[in-house]
Every structure is written in structure tokens, then in C-alpha cells.
């Protein structure tokens, strides 16, 4: 059994107004060194697979076909034995 953990964020070239607002709140709180704050989604799931390579391949497919929209989003993931 494997556990995939995925992070989806808006592509770097796209303005993230929500991230900007939160960043400026961090600055107001005194965390003035906080930079490039981006808000995204965390998604995780378990999957049955004989090898880690296969689990990664399936995770990649799920990301590409469903979890992220490549027009506006980037994704990254890690897959671990669970």
C-alpha cells in the first residue's frame, strides 16, 4: 500500500490574489521577510500497487487528468509506503 500526497498551486506566471492578501497580512504581523506566498491545495490518497514506480505513474496520471488543470495549475507529489 502506498500513500500519495499532492500539492496543487496556481502556475507561477499567474497572479494569486489570495496569496498576496495573506502575504500582506503576514507583513502586518511583523513577518516582514515572508515572500512569494502562494495558496494551493493539498490532496492525498492511498493506492494499492506492487511497486513504487507504478504508484508514482498512477499518481501522475490522476494529477494530469483530474486533480490539476494544466492551463492554470502546477502540481507536485510524493509517494511513500504506507
Amino acid at each position, binding site marked *: 500500500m502506498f500513500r500519495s500526497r499532492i500539492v496543487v498551486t*496556481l502556475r507561477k506566471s*499567474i497572479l494569486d*490574489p*489570495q496569496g498576496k*492578501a495573506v502575504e500582506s497580512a503576514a507583513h502586518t504581523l511583523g513577518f516582514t521577510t515572508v515572500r512569494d506566498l502562494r495558496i494551493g491545495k493539498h490532496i492525498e490518497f492511498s493506492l494499492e500497487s506492487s511497486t513504487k514506480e507504478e504508484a508514482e505513474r498512477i499518481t501522475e496520471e490522476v494529477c494530469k487528468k*483530474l*486533480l490539476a*488543470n494544466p*492551463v*492554470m495549475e502546477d502540481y507536485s507529489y510524493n509517494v511513500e509506503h504506507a
Partner: protein
Amino acid sequence: MKTKFGIVVFPGSNCDHDAHHAVKNIMKQEARFIWHKESSLGDVDVVILPGGFSYGDYLRTGAIARFSPVMREVVRFAKNGGTVIGICNGFQILLEAEMLPGAMLRNRSLKFVCDFIHLRVENPSTRFTSECERGDVLKVPIAHGEGNYFADNDTIAALQDGDQIVLRYCSSTGIVDDASNPNGSLGNIAGIINKEGNVFGMMPHPERAMELPLGSADGRKIFQSMIESVVLI
């Protein structure tokens, strides 16, 4: 002969009845609902993907609705040249289904905007705008939180070259500028059409602009255009 409109109902659609009312009671055409689990569209001339919050907008707007069983039939219908219009959430579904290019970002203001806006008709030579003249200004309401149209530069250039940008947000006098852009859409884009000219998506709600006492009857032009186009086909 009456034009037969099929209105797809997803869990969370909420403009399906408005569309039905517009078609049946205002335009005096045939309208029927098509539940998203159906595996056939039946005998229809036009498919409407209505507004709403299909699947609660989970994951992304339209992202889950595109996998509803009926969408396979909608894709097939469109491939065979059938007329498909996606309104608001319906437009978002068409984007997710890659039946139209691009994607919808959150509105620039991060707020849900519900208001009358104005649209400039950029291309009157479509099945959806043939009752308009180039440059006509239509008053139609919007109601969305994710209507900030985005696509990469190449896609925008291709849309531009193909005359596929059909509607842009504008002022009441037809000026397309940033002040008249309600959501941050690239190039004030409010409605686009596919290359083949049979699949159209628009964020504003023509079905809510059918009767003057309710603010505007300009939406009738969109419906009348579709009816005329079916007669021509």
C-alpha cells in the same frame, strides 16, 4: 417547426429552470431536461449546459461534471456538428472538458459578482449571435466567483485570429476597457466559440435577460440566433 432544446441537469445546476422558462415560455420552443446520468441526449437540436454549482464546485468549477455520463454524449453531439451552449458553470464545464480552450480563475476581486453588465458583440457571424450586429451592446447579468478567463498567449492569439472571441465585457456605450471588466478576464473576454463554430461558452446569463420588467430582454437575441441557426441547418 419548433426547435428542440435539451437542458442538461447536473447535481448542483440551478439555472436549468431559468433556461427551460426562457426556451419554453418566452421563445415558445420545445424544452426538456436531460439528467446527467442519462446515456442519450434524445432528439434535440441544441444542448444547453446551464449555470449553477455542479458538484458544489468541488476541486475546480466544472471539473467533476465533465465526467458525468451524459458528457460523453455531449462531446459526440458536438463532434457531429450539434449546437452546444454553456452558460456560466456550463462554460466552465466546456473548458474543463477541453471542448473550448482556456480556464477560469477566481475573479480578480476574489468576490462573487452578481450584477448587470454590458457585452459587446465582436462576432455576429455565429449560430449564437446572428441576430446581432457587430458592435451591438447587450445588457445581461453575471453571477459568478470564477469568471476570470485565462489562457496562454498563443491560445489568445489563435482565438483572436479565428474570430472566436464572440463577446467582451464593455461599458454601456460599448467601450471595452479595464473599468468595464467585472472579473479580470484576459482581454475582457466574456464568451468564446470553438473553431468549428458550434460550441459556445459565455459567463453572462442570457436566460436571465429575457423580459424587460426583469431588467433586460437582450438575452432573447442569443436564443433567437440559435433558433434561426437550427432552421438553416
